[in-house]
């Protein structure tokens, strides 16, 4: 990411920038390694239903300044966990009264509806955001990615 940032900074006369959340998940160990470039912090929903934002150290967006370091962070996932990644078009979707969708509504959706398939949660959040914004014009892209690490199929598990 540091290299990508430097390359972007070399030719950026329009002063554009991008946010990046980069992660590598190893299902053998459950370890998710990630680095942040100014992106909204993804939410980790634990199998029990608790939701936490992935901790980050205020990584800078890419393209703004060369020579920036992007430290690695690590979090351990458990089977049944969900990782929810989103763009600011989700939390900054406005309704006709100029209120933002915000993180609280997003967290509530993730908490209540995160048990099922990844695609179902994406659909659920998207529906919630568009219902909230109603007739207000969309101000930014609405992008969602959910990683679901399913619990193993256990016939008698009862869940």
């Amino acid at each position, binding site marked *: 990411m540091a290299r990508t940032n430097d390359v972007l900074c070399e030719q950026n006369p329009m*002063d*554009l*920038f991008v*946010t990046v959340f980069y992660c590598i998940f190893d299902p053998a160990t459950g370890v998710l390694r990630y680095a942040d*470039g*100014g*992106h*909204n*912090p993804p939410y980790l929903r634990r199998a029990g239903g608790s939701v936490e934002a992935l901790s980050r150290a*205020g*990584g*800078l*967006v890419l393209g*703004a*300044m060369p020579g920036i370091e992007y430290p690695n962070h690590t979090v351990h996932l458990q089977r049944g966990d969900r990782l929810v990644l989103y763009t*600011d078009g989700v939390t*900054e979707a406005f309704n006709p009264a*100029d209120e*933002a969708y915000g993180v609280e509504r997003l967290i509530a959706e993730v908490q209540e509806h995160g048990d099922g398939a990844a695609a179902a949660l994406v659909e659920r959040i998207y529906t919630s955001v568009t219902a909230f914004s109603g007739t207000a014009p969309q*101000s*930014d892209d609405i992008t969602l990615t959910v990683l679901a690490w399913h619990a193993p199929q256990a016939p008698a598990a009862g869940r």
Partner: protein
Amino acid sequence: MKVRLETLGPTTLVVPQGRLDFASADRFQMQLEQALAGAGTAPAALIIDCVDLDYVSSAGLRVFLRAARSAERGGVSFAVCTLKPAVRDVFDLSGFSRIIAVHASRAMALQTAAGPA
């Protein structure tokens, strides 16, 4: 979005009011460029006082980046101050508060601007 300009000696203060988003970014960009150019001579410092700024989108953030770059090229000291919590969040999340001087109050920003660069 409304923008007010104030001049305090060699320092120009820009006070945006309302929402800085895609719709208002271009105009604010132009106003900042004009403020940086000054009337004949450039100011020694440009401070954006965000006391009345309610919201900054990513398109709005870019205006701050452009202004900071432009100020740097012109040798103009650049800072922002009095960010509302929502705007402060955007500066922190994007990492901008690491590369742009952010002051808690206008007084602190002015004090820093007046001091040795």
